[in-house]
């Protein structure tokens, strides 16, 4: 027997995940389940009229392996504000220097940067009212392209699926983004790019998610182990 020390390192196992199930809305979006219980509801509008930055709508659908919309999906997003700062004590950026100029990166008191919503029970469409985030720091001192983090829960999804939303009008920044370019298969990177359009004077970014390849040619979205 080898002389091993008494164990001083205890890493407890993470609690196992279970599906959110078909009635996830009761807990996380009760108004969508059909009743009103809380005075304050968490929802899909991340902004107020005062929130700084370009106001956008992020919308899309989630598809299963047959191409059928996942109408019971529950989606949450997390993002930086327009200055590229997260409303979290772990983000201690005051300013950053780019091209010799220092730009302030202040917290926007009107913007938490987090929201949640379910897909529409008829169409499967989800919608967030938010702002386009600024670029945020990467690990190597460089910069990440503007992006929104997204996690999906639903019946049949055993562990929440994490992905990222990038923007198609940020081609140069996307080409330099370490996470996006770290995806070995260039053809799969496109699954993370939202498409910009305008409707009734509002800026819309469309971001569809494919849980699997579909017979009609949908390509499975890149999901991350974060």
């Amino acid at each position, binding site marked *: 027997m080898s002389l091993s020390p008494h164990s001083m390192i205890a890493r407890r196992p993470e609690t196992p995940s*279970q599906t959110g199930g078909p009635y996830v809305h*009761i807990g996380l979006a009760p108004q969508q389940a059909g009743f009103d219980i*809380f005075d304050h509801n968490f929802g899909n509008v991340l902004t107020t009229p005062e929130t700084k930055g370009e106001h956008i709508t992020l919308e899309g659908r989630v598809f299963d392996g047959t191409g059928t919309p996942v109408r019971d999906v529950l989606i949450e997003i997390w993002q930086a504000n327009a200055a590229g700062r997260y409303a979290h004590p772990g983000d201690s950026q005051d300013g950053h220097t780019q091209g010799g100029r220092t730009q302030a990166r202040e917290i926007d008191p009107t913007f938490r940067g987090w929201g949640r919503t379910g897909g529409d029970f008829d169409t499967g469409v989800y919608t967030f009212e938010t702002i386009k985030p600024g670029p945020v720091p990467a690990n190597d001192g460089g910069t990440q392209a503007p992006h929104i983090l997204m996690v999906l829960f639903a019946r*049949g999804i*055993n562990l929440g699926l994490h992905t990222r939303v990038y923007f198609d009008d940020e081609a140069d920044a996307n080409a330099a983004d370490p996470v996006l370019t770290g995806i070995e298969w260039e053809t799969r990177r496109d699954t993370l790019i939202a498409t910009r359009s305008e409707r009734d004077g509002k800026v819309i970014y469309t971001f569809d998610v494919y849980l699997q390849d579909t017979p009609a040619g949908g390509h499975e979205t890149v*999901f991350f*182990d974060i």
Partner: protein
Amino acid sequence: MIIAAPGAASGEFVERDHTQHPPALTPGYRTSVLRSPRNALIAPRPTLSETTGPVFDPRELGEKDNDLILNFAKDGLPIGERLIVHGYVRDEFGNPVKGALVEAWQANAGGRYRHKKDRYLAPIDPNFGGCGRMITDENGYYFFRTIKPGPYPWANSTNAWRPAHIHFSINGTGWAQRLITQMYFEGDPLIERCPIAKTVPTLDQLRSLIAQEDPANNAPFDARTYRFDLTLRGRRATFFDNITLPGAPR
């Protein structure tokens, strides 16, 4: 609306141990077949985006938000066994996760959800909503009061019954800690037969989803108590530039 609590950890999370979680594709749980990605997950080095996450303030919640017995009561009390569920949210290194948003939802005593898509013939309870929420204290502690949910049939097969369970959603101190799971009740024979419970890789791991009866903490002549602790991912702490060690600070 934005409150950045001082002192929250900022190190990156230790990589997730996927052997602790169900795989995406679990054919015994049939709905997973068409909803499970076929490609491997991609694991970039965590960035500021994943180590941060939403911060919640207790003032955003209402006084009765963690009292499922009263938070939807209209003209009486909900039918069923009165229960208290309590426990601690900690990370993998035993540190309390304070300020975590814990949300819980469940069926009523008859196994029926207050949800427009639930068509089970058991009746809606007019005095029971079935959802609650709370924020953990300095010690990672949470508690709520409810009634015991009933088992109910579901369409995985023609005679499949879910064990009594309460759904839990946890937002910890960072995006990568996000977790949704389910709590079962000690002694329920349906757990071992449930295709969803059994998506967890081993029966020993499944034991960590079973709440333990906690009679010493019963509320006498009022409610029975169950204990359910949760473990979220832990962070590495940065001691020196480019050198990180797991588990600190305490």
